[in-house]
């Protein structure tokens, strides 16, 4: 049972069979978003050159934020600097971030990056170029990709297209749409001619750890309340018992004294 979350409005369909590792998407992203020179919001995953000369293979695919339906980073962020919009865009508010870097660890896809060399650094993360979307433009990476490896559009269309492609060319593609189920479903979808592990994609479960996290964190105030009550109760009970005991002792003492007095008399 997963946390109920709406489908994203937009989605990417990235086809690893088209990517030529030209890095145009990376430059487009860095320029568009003024990403610092020592960082990047998008990078290339690759199989490396596999096989033995001359039977060689190599596959690559660009990788950026998956825009999870139930994003771990959002759940983790200490200060709500990361949020998921109605459209399903997982966005970062650089004015709120305190730089705890919990999001970096929390993301099961290893997405958020950091401006390590800045004295006052920020998180570097794909925001689906929402500013471009607002102007009716495609995200910078998708727009420029010379081979069409990055497609962008309505989430439903991308998902349908992914399934159409892999079922139409079953010999070419692995029969799996990465991101359809991963981490509870993501707006970024992939298809590939090689198993996703070989491309270095993380193997992610079908439920976002954000769900388990919430189970615990959202229960915390209740536990705390119960503890307060419990501890107070314990304190009062023990105090009462102790006082009772003391009184009894006192009374016993008194009685003893009285008894002694009687006897003396």
């Amino acid at each position: 049972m997963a946390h109920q979350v709406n489908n994203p409005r937009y989605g990417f369909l990235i086809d690893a069979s088209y990517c030529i590792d030209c890095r145009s998407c990376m430059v487009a992203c860095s320029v568009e978003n003024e990403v610092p020179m020592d960082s990047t919001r998008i990078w290339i995953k690759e199989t490396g050159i596999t096989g033995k000369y001359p039977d060689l293979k190599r596959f690559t695919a660009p990788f950026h934020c998956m825009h999870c339906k139930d994003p771990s980073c959002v759940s983790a962020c200490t200060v709500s600097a990361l949020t998921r919009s109605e459209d399903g865009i997982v966005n970062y508010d650089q004015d709120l971030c305190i730089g705890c870097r919990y999001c970096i660890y929390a993301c099961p896809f290893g997405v958020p990056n950091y401006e390590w060399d800045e004295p006052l650094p920020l998180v570097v993360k794909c925001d689906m170029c929402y500013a471009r979307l607002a102007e009716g433009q495609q995200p910078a990476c998708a727009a420029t990709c010379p081979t069409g490896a990055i497609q962008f559009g309505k989430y439903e269309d991308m998902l349908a297209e992914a399934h159409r492609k892999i079922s139409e060319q079953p010999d070419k593609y692995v029969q799996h749409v990465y991101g359809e189920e991963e981490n509870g479903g993501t707006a970024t979808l992939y298809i590939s001619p090689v198993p996703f592990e070989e491309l270095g994609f993380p193997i992610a479960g079908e439920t976002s750890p954000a769900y388990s996290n919430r189970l615990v964190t959202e229960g915390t105030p209740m536990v705390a309340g119960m503890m307060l009550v419990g501890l107070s109760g314990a304190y009062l009970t023990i105090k009462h018992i102790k006082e009772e005991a003391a009184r009894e002792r006192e009374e016993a003492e008194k009685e003893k004294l009285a008894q002694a007095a009687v006897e003396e008399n």
Partner: protein
Amino acid sequence: MLQKLLHELRTMPKFLYVTAALTLLGLSVGLYRMIVGLGPTTNLSKAFPWGVWISFDLATVALSGGAFTLAALVYVLQFEDLHSATRPTVLAGLLGYSSVMVILLFDLGRWDRFYNVFLHPNVSSALLEVSWCITAYSLILIYELSPVLLEKTRFKWLLPTIKKYTVPIVIIGVTLSTMHQSSLGTMFIIMSPRLHPLWSSMLLPVFFLVSSLASGISLVIAGASVSYWLFGHSLKIKTMAKLSWFIPWLLAFYVVIKFGELVITGEWDLLFSSGGYSLLFWGEIIFGALIPIGMFAFRQVRFSRVASLIGALFVMGGVILNRFDVTWFSIAPVQGETYTPHWMEIAILVGVAAGLVTVYSLVARYLPVYEETDTFKRNTPLPRPLEEAPAAGD
């Protein structure tokens, strides 16, 4: 006046010079880190955004767990004979938390706006819970410790009022403490894909809480023992024995749930098949739990300062190892990238730890921390500066 000061300095235990120097060095490196950023001064990376500082913090918080354990025992459960142990423990706790906060400030990329934790909270974040509880709890520790600070000053008249509210405050403190000790474990639930399955668990909050109870008590015992040899005042051996009685029970419970969970999730085969990870895990269990359980089960151990110290050190070592495992050693490398701390990370850490020791020693020396404890007389007369030296407030 000056002479007195010089005399003071001369009579100071020599190790304090070393710790003070290390503190200064660490803080200068820390200043440098603030100026140039994390990149040049740490080996943190996207693959390992948290390093030895966080491991240190988690271990320190666990060890500082003695403060709330003792407060609960003394004030809530009203084991009055343990009362004499509270002051040194609360002091150790407060200093522990302070050093954690200093380290966190070095660790936060945007330390300049740490206050956003309070202005823009995200309630589903375990880290938020941790930071709120730790802050609130530190205030409570200050409250609990305030009599020590005020006793000799003209704010003495506050003491009765403070005393009056101590119990409700302690109850809140114990709650907060329970919350953050466990939330520290919760923090790693969301990171489960990155943790080795031997450590990754939904029960992490419980593991963390229980182990912090055991290690907290151990720290009290270890602290008292060390103080015995260094300053000549400490806890009664009976008090110590009473405290250490809890340790085997807590640890046994810990071991049972820990293995129980592995059996239920069907991951117990990993206990032997995970190479270095298995070793680390067994290291925690054998040295941190099984051996001390065995030791403290014996009355003779509980009533021996030396043996208790050794047992306590085992527990603390086990818990420290556990926190390092969860925060660092069990984290899966990303594309082979591993993490070893930069020397500056270590320098800052050593500096803060040295600062901790320095401050604790000074406070223990000048303030009535062990006032209520039995003053044991050693052959060599140890200076009791409080009687001769001007108190801080004068």
